[in-house]
């Protein structure tokens, strides 16, 4: 429901602007890495939804935590049940704006550095974040990529001391979305 409201809000803000300025994907890829030298903890989610407005720079991501895949079923279970509590908090999201939109030319092929500023919600906790990214324009389409780190404790994710040496305090998140016109 929240998502529909978000989309409705985004769209209502876009009145008078052309629909072709809105690009989206349902198959955004998000990687989660929180391993250590003892163990790899890598999860991949290929079902993230994202929308970007090329004229206003507004950008939104949402994903379902249960769609993260891990190599081991047990790791996936722990990720969902013990850390992310994905039944209570099924979603993670980001909504914000590209702050240097003028530096990105969506009409010309090339790679542009972009910075997005906004609110990141994970595990029911919302924080203001600024993340670096790259936008690559090619053949009239474009993709967005970003890698950043989050402190698990910032989002109320508790790591028991027994496994503290296996799990990184900071998780690395990588997002890669290939956008299509709405």
């Amino acid at each position, binding site marked *: 429901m929240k998502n*529909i409201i978000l*989309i409705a809000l985004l769209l209502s803000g876009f009145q008078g602007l052309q629909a072709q300025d809105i690009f989206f994907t*349902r*198959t955004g*890829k998000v990687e989660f890495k929180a391993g250590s030298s003892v163990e790899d903890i890598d999860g991949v989610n*290929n*079902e993230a939804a994202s929308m970007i407005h090329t004229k206003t720079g507004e950008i939104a991501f949402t994903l379902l935590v249960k769609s993260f895949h891990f190599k081991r*079923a*047990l790791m996936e279970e722990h990720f969902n049940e013990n850390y992310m509590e994905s039944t209570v908090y*099924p979603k993670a999201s980001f909504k914000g704006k590209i702050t240097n939109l003028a530096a990105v030319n969506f009409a010309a092929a090339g790679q542009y550095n972009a910075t997005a500023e906004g609110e990141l919600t994970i595990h029911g906790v919302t924080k203001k974040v600024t993340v670096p990214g790259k936008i690559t324009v090619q053949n009239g389409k474009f993709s967005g990529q970003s890698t950043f780190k989050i402190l698990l404790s910032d989002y109320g994710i508790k790591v028991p001391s027994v496994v503290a040496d296996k799990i990184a305090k900071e998780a690395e998140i990588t997002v890669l979305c290939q956008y299509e016109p709405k």
Partner: protein
Amino acid sequence: MKKIIALIGIVALIAIGWAAWYAFNKPHRSLDESQMIRVQADSLFLAFQQDETTANAAYLDKALEVSGMIAEIKTNQQGQTVLVLDSGDPMGGIVCTLTRPAEGLVKSQQVIVRGFCSGYLSDVVLRDGILVNP
């Protein structure tokens, strides 16, 4: 007597070791037919659209068998086929990522897919999907 105790101890240790090894390496959940919830694409979408909390209680993480019409066929960045089933509502559909390659599918085709429900974004998302027919 001591020998028997030692033997029991060894057997117990092996059992514990095996159980731990199995838990650590246990396989991912499979789509077990007996646990399947059968639902139409439009009624599944409507359930989430009307009341996400109730729909989550009914469907989240459950194995679903969904029948509907293919609205879109996409490929994700891992090369997997992603089907979007028509929900009768332009706001969203049922998105199902297939784990095995699927060929010969066309838009407007009626299909039945199975997958685990990850929840609702503006679409209902099914992961680890398989195609039951055609």
